[in-house]
C-alpha cells in the first residue's frame, strides 16, 4: 500500500495509507488465478467470495464486485483498512507460497471506496416479521448482527452507551488508520435498513435487565472495554493513561484540537507506551502526532511484537523508539510522572505457543530509567463487565467473558452474544464473523416460533 510521506502525516490525523488507483486495482486483480479451491476464502473469517469479487474487478465491473463483497460483509471499507489480511486471506493465498500474495485487502478497500463515491446499493430485505431484536453495543459485532437481523425482516433496536456508534472503530482506532467519516458512512448504511439506534443508553442501567430480556431475541456485543493496569507503583500519578483513555480523549473527544474542543489531554514531551500490540502502536503514533518523543517499551524481542507488521513499520517510520526486552517496574515522580523505571529482560525457554518466556535480568545494569512525563499502558483489555455481571443466569468464563456455543448461543435460550465480549479481545472481522453466526441462530429461532 502506498503511504503519505512521514513529515506530512505527522502533522495531521488524516489517513496514512492511500488507496489503489483504478488502473492499479485492475492490474492487481488480474494477478489472481481464480483457484478452483481458493485457499484465501478459507482464510477469511466471513468467507467472502474472494476470487469472485476480484474477477469482477479484473472485468472492471466494480458494481458487481461490490455486490459480491457485501453479500458477506456489510463493512468492507472498514475491513479493507484494518483487517490483518497478511494473517488471513492474503496469508493463505496460493501466490504467496512462492512470490507475493494478491493484495486482497487493498482490493476490498478499493471496491468499498468506489461504491461510496459512486452511489450505494442497499441490499434486499425480507418482509417484516413483527419480531423485535435488541442489540447491545454498536461496535462491529453489534452492527453486523443488526444488519443480518434487519435483512431477515425483524425489527431491530441498537443500544449504545456512548454518544456515537462504532465501538472501538470510533473511540479506539485512530483516524489516520480508520477515518471517522468512513465508519459513520458504513454504519449509516446499516441503519438505513431500518434499525433504531439509541445512543446514551447503557443497558443494565438505562434499560433494566428484565426490559432487555423481554425482547424476542437479544444479541450482546459489548466488547472488551475494560482496561488492564500493570499494578506497579506510581500508576495513579497524573499523566498515566490506559490506552483506552488516551485514545478515547483524542478519537472520540478530539482532545488533539483542545481548546477548540473542550476535552484536555496531557501531550507530554516524552512519552512511554507500554505494550507491543496494535493498541500500543496506535497509542505511540497518536502521541507522536501530539508532538512527543515516544518510547515503546516491550518485554520480549522486536521479532516477537504481536502488532501487525505494517503498523510496526509505520511506527518505526514515524520515529517511535522501540525499547525491547524491558519491563516497567515503577513509575517515578508524584503527583506527576517524572520517569519510568524498567528491568531488562532475558529470553529463556519457549512457552507452549513457541514464544520466549521473558524473565527479569538480575545483577548490575539490570535496571534503567527513562525520563518521561506521560505513560500509556497498552497491556490489554478484558470483557466489559457491566451488563454481563448483572444477568444472574448468564454463564461466564473465568475471565468474565460470556460463554457461547458455536452458534453464538448463551446459557439463556433467547440471548446470544458475539465479538470481543465472547471471544476476548480479537479483531474486527472475528467480531463480525461471530456476530453473523449468532444472528443466523437468532433468525432461525425467530422463524421457528
Amino acid at each position, binding site marked *: 500500500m502506498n503511504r503519505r510521506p512521514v513529515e506530512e502525516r505527522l502533522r495531521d490525523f488524516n489517513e496514512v495509507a492511500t488507496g489503489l488507483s483504478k488502473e492499479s486495482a485492475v492490474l492487481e486483480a488480474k494477478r489472481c488465478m481464480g483457484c478452483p479451491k481458493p485457499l484465501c476464502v478459507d482464510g477469511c473469517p466471513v468467507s467472502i467470495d474472494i476470487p469472485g469479487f476480484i474477477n469482477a474487478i479484473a472485468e472492471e465491473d466494480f458494481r458487481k464486485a461490490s455486490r459480491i463483497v457485501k453479500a458477506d460483509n456489510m463493512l468492507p471499507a472498514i475491513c479493507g483498512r484494518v483487517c490483518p489480511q497478511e494473517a488471513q486471506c492474503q496469508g493463505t493465498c496460493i501466490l504467496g507460497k512462492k512470490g507475493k500474495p494478491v493484495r486482497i485487502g487493498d482490493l476490498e478497500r478499493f471496491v468499498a471506496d468506489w461504491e461510496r463515491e459512486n452511489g450505494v446499493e442497499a441490499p434486499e430485505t425480507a418482509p417484516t416479521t413483527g419480531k423485535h431484536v435488541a442489540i447491545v453495543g454498536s461496535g462491529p459485532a453489534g452492527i453486523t448482527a443488526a444488519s443480518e437481523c434487519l435483512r431477515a425482516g425483524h425489527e431491530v433496536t441498537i443500544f449504545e452507551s456512548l*454518544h456515537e456508534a462504532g465501538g472501538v472503530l470510533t473511540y479506539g482506532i485512530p483516524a489516520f488508520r480508520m477515518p471517522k467519516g468512513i465508519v459513520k458512512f458504513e454504519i449509516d448504511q446499516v441503519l438505513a435498513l431500518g434499525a433504531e439506534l439509541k445512543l446514551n443508553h447503557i443497558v443494565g442501567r438505562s434499560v433494566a435487565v428484565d426490559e432487555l430480556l423481554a425482547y424476542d431475541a437479544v444479541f450482546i456485543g459489548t466488547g472488551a472495554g475494560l482496561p488492564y493496569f500493570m499494578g506497579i507503583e506510581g500508576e495513579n500519578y497524573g499523566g498515566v493513561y490506559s490506552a483506552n483513555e488516551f485514545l478515547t480523549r483524542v478519537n472520540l473527544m478530539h482532545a488533539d484540537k483542545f481548546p477548540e474542543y473542550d476535552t484536555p489531554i496531557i501531550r507530554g514531551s516524552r512519552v512511554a507506551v507500554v505494550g507491543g500490540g496494535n493498541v500500543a502502536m496506535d497509542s505511540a503514533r497518536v502521541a507522536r502526532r501530539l508532538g512527543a518523543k515516544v518510547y515503546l517499551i516491550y518485554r520480549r524481542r522486536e521479532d516477537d511484537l504481536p502488532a501487525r507488521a505494517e503498523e510496526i513499520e509505520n511506527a518505526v517510520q514515524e520515529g517511535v523508539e522501540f525499547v525491547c526486552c524491558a519491563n516497567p517496574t515503577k513509575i517515578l515522580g508524584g*503527583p506527576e510522572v517524572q520517569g519510568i523505571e524498567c528491568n531488562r529482560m532475558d529470553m529463556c525457554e519457549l512457552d507452549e505457543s513457541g514464544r520466549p518466556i521473558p524473565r527479569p535480568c538480575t545483577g548490575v545494569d539490570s535496571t534503567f530509567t527513562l525520563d518521561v512525563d506521560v505513560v500509556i499502558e497498552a497491556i490489554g483489555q478484558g470483557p466489559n463487565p457491566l451488563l454481563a455481571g448483572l444477568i444472574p443466569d448468564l454463564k461466564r468464563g473465568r475471565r468474565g467473558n460470556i460463554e457461547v456455543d458455536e452458534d453464538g448461543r448463551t446459557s439463556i435460550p433467547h440471548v446470544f452474544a458475539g465479538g470481543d465480549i465472547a471471544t476476548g479481545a480479537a479483531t474486527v472481522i472475528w467480531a463480525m464473523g461471530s456476530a453473523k453466526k449468532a444472528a443466523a441462530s437468532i433468525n432461525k429461532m425467530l422463524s421457528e416460533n
Partner: protein
Amino acid sequence: MYKIVKRDQIADNIFEYWINAPHVTKNGCAGQFVVIRIDEHGERIPLTISGIRGDDVRIVFMAVGKTTQQLAALQEGESIQDIAGPLGTPSEVKKWGRCAVIGGGVGIACLPILARELREAGNEVTGIIGARNEGLLLLEDELRNACDELVICTDDGSKGHHGFPADILKEKVAAKELDAVWIIGPAIMMKITSMATLNTGIKTFVSLNPIMVDGTGMCGSCRVTIGGETKFACVDGPEFDAHQVDWDELMNRQRTYTGQEKESLEHYHEHKCRCGDH
C-alpha cells in the same frame, strides 16, 4: 437532543435544571449520576442525579469552569446534545436504623433524593448541611421535608451553627445516635468529616468525584484506591467506604488538568466576547 424543561438559579452561582430524559429517569435512583455533553465540541462531565419527576431528571451544579459556565448560560427550552445515564451503583438503601446525610456546598443537592429513599426504607434520617455562607445553602425547605431533623451550618456563622457539619456529626457520634452516614461534598470536606466516624463501627459512605471520561468503566480515568485496591468510581462507585479511600491520591488526580481547565475557560470567554453571545 434533550430539552431543559426548567431552569433556576438557586444560590450564588448554583443552578437547578430539570432535563427531559426518560431513559435516565426510568431506572435512576439515589447515588447515581449522569454524563452530559452540551454540544459537538463539548466535554463529557458527570453530574449527580438530584431528583426525578416523571420523565425529567434534576441536576444541580456550580458554574465553576468552561462546561458548567456554558451550561449555566443555556435557557429554559434550549437543549443539550447528550445525557447518558443513570450511571454508577445506587446508594445502599436498606434498613440501617438511624442515618445521617451530610452535604457540603453543591453536594447538598444529592441529599433530598437519598433522604427520601432512606426514610421509605424505614430509617430515621438527620440532615446536616454546611456551606461557606448563607448564600450558598440550597434546597433547604425540600430537605427539611425529606428528613426527620435538619441541622444547618455555615463557616461564617451567617446562618445556623457557626462551624462545620463535622462538629455536629461528632456530637451525634458521641451520643451513639447513628448507624450509617453519607457524606457528600468536596473531597477535602469528605475526608475531614469522615474522621468523626473512624473506628466507631458506623458505616460511612462518601461519593467520590474523580475526573471521568466515559463513565461506563471503559477508560480507567476515574480510578481511585480503596483499601489498597484500584476501583473505577464510575462503575464500582461513586459511593465508597470513607475510611478506605486514599484521599490524597484522589485530590492529586483531580488536579491533573488545572492548567488546561484555565486555558479552556479563557478561550471560552474570549470567544464569547468576539461573537457577542454565547
